[in-house]
């Protein structure tokens, strides 16, 4: 039985990556390597103001003083930062007026990814910023949203059209000194999405950014900044894919969220970067810093992530709970297979009174992969009556993979209540046989059981994407489910 099940798991966990194609388009590419001249060139290409160039150069200076972090439970091969292209953009009109201005190849690429740039064709109620390599290709529904005063555009456009907002908040949550990859990103970031929800506005549609790495030897360094003003609400989703290549590619993004008084931000990620092949060759190095601050009282930030891709994931979407009564949430499903490695989790920093945080993490490991949860719950001195509940579950498929949990709790206020629960389990032969006896084959049974295991988190995703994510989970681990 064990052998047969392992066989099925092996079979079903090795489905081909669906998004591995490459689009052959003309690009505007800077030479490889990282130095001040390259940074000046990136900034010049984007016609940036002086203050932003200064920010980049300061960040670069900082980065040079820092070294790769090695505390994660990851084996990271040496990265030659001089062997990476830091800017590559599909050649097109600077800001396409209409769809006709977009290269048909590009449109086709996004169609293939299920992200039509044509507003008519798109899922109703979802606005998309589509980003390929270093630039934003098109943002849909910008005008509709603008009527409500919502700004949703590429980061470059925001720098041009809303410099004050960008300048005020850029680096305010993740300073360039924060860590090695944040410093690198701050120096060379190319594009990303910017979003501002004005006071009292409930954003009527899901906002979403779709990231696509296309060019070879290129790193993707996007920057996302999301500001929710007093009493506003927004739900935001990002998705990502990349072509299959034998070389590893670096993705080092920074996401910053600011929630002001009584504001609520829901940020969901479905991460499906190319994970590398079965032997562990190729794949994306996904080194991402995501952090939100509940700056105002009664504000709330909720992270939901479904991580199925990347060769290596290093990512800890976190919340700084500064406002009194503010709430931070982290819901995560991380799937690793073959030779993938993931070290992911969250930090909940309780500063304000009556702050609450919830952490639900579900790790699923298959193949020869390593999957770690790493989380910090920190209660500061003045965080009276802070509460945290953490639950970290690991599910192992097969016997060659690993699951690890590294929870850290630091409490400086005795009124805090912090709870941590953890479990590790395997899919049992009994469960599979029970499904078989009801007419469900082993492949479907595994899909059913894995989805059941992750359901608590999948339920947190916006409806439109929950189904997608469910499918993705099954594709990452197996064929399909009924």
């Amino acid at each position, binding site marked *: 039985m064990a052998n047969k099940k392992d066989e099925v798991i092996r079979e079903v966990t090795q489905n081909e990556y669906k998004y591995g194609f490459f689009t052959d388009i003309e690009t505007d590419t800077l030479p490889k390597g990282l130095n001040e001249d390259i940074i000046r060139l990136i900034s010049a290409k984007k016609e940036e103001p002086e203050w932003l160039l200064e920010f980049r150069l300061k960040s670069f200076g900082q980065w040079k003083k820092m070294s790769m972090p090695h505390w994660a439970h990851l084996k990271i091969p040496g990265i030659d930062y001089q062997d990476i292209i830091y800017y590559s953009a599909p050649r097109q009109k600077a800001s396409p007026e209409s769809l006709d201005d977009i290269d048909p190849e590009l449109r086709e690429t996004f169609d293939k990814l299920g992200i039509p740039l044509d507003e008519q064709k798109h899922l109703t109620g979802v606005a998309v910023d589509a980003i390929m390599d270093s630039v934003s290709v098109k943002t849909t529904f910008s005008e509709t949203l603008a009527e409500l005063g919502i700004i949703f555009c590429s980061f470059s456009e925001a720098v041009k059209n809303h410099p004050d907002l960008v300048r005020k908040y850029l680096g305010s949550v993740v300073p360039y000194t924060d860590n090695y990859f944040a410093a690198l990103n701050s120096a060379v970031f190319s594009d990303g999405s910017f979003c501002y929800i004005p006071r009292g506005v409930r954003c009527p549609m899901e906002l979403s950014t779709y990231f696509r790495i296309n060019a070879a030897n290129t790193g993707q360094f996007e920057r996302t900044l999301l500001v929710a003003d007093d009493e506003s609400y927004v739900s935001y989703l990002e998705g990502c894919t990349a072509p299959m290549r034998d070389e590893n590619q670096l993705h080092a993004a920074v996401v910053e969220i600011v929630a002001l008084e009584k504001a609520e931000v829901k940020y969901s990620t479905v991460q499906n970067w190319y994970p590398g092949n079965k032997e562990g060759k190729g794949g994306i190095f996904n080194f991402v810093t995501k952090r939100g601050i509940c700056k105002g009282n009664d504000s709330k930030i909720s992270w939901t992530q479904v991580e199925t891709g990347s060769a290596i994931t290093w990512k800890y979407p976190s919340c700084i709970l500064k406002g009194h009564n503010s709430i931070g949430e982290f819901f995560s499903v991380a799937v690793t297979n073959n030779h993938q490695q993931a070290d992911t989790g969250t930090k909940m920093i309780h500063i304000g009174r009556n702050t609450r945080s919830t952490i639900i993490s579900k790790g699923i490991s298959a193949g020869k992969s390593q999957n770690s949860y790493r989380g910090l719950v920190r209660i500061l001195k003045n965080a009276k009556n802070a509460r945290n509940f953490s639950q970290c579950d690991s599910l192992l498929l097969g016997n060659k993979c690993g699951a690890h949990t590294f929870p850290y709790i630091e409490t400086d206020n005795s009124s805090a209540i912090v709870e941590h629960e953890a479990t590790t389990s395997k899919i049992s032969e009994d*469960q599979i046989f*029970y499904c*078989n*006896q009801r007419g469900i084959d082993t492949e479907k049974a595994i899909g*059913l059981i894995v989805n*059941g*295991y992750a359901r608590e988190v999948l339920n947190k995703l916006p409806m439109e994407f929950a189904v997608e994510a469910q499918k993705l989970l099954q594709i990452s681990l197996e064929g399909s*489910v*009924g």
Partner: protein
Amino acid sequence: MLLIKELKVNVAGKEILYGINLEVKAGEVHAIMGPNGSGKSTLAAALAGRDTIDVIHGSVKYMGEDLLEMDPEERAKKGIFLGFQYPVEIPGVSMVNFMKTAVNEHRIFQGKEPLSAGDFLKYMRERKELVEFDSQLTNRSVNEGFSGGEKKKNEIFQMALIEPKLAILDETDSGLDIDALRVVANGVNALKNKDNATIVITHYQRLLDYIVPDFVHVLFQGRIVKSSGRELALELEEKGYDWIRAEANGQV
């Protein structure tokens, strides 16, 4: 419907069944009784295709086909249902989702259209009434947090949804109070017709007051040592298994 000939099986290298012969025809109810460790559950598992069980000799024909050649899911889809002695919990998978998947697998196999969510819910409500299944339980995860009695009732409910040709109920009565026992038995009786058959595996004759068998077999030390009509169950109830033991040992 089912014809077992000289079936010998091993579990973990140890011989458990020493040559079982049994024929079950459509419309019949067979009871298999016997003391603990006599091989009753092993027989049920062998018929359902559990692969911890090695068949080393004999044949099993089901509807004219070689049952032993089939995967467990194929056996299930061809109409064999096992009511588990210890139903398994599947956290996070709702009963609705689980049974919709199961029922639709059967339908696809039979060349029918799978049921939509709406149609399935309607069908489920109908079947629920038939077996007096508590409506709350279908909203929960498969068997998770169910009491012993609820788990057993859930097996009968699943049987009602799947409508098998041959149901094998493995100690479905164990651990049930008298009310639950009645519910389970009523369910089994309500599902009975001339085209299907039931094998009831039980320890006690109690269940057989409600599910009246056409045949009673006594399984002892891996063999069927006695087969008779219903009266055998009553005799066992009265005398216990010792006389069977004595008789069987005398034969050896």
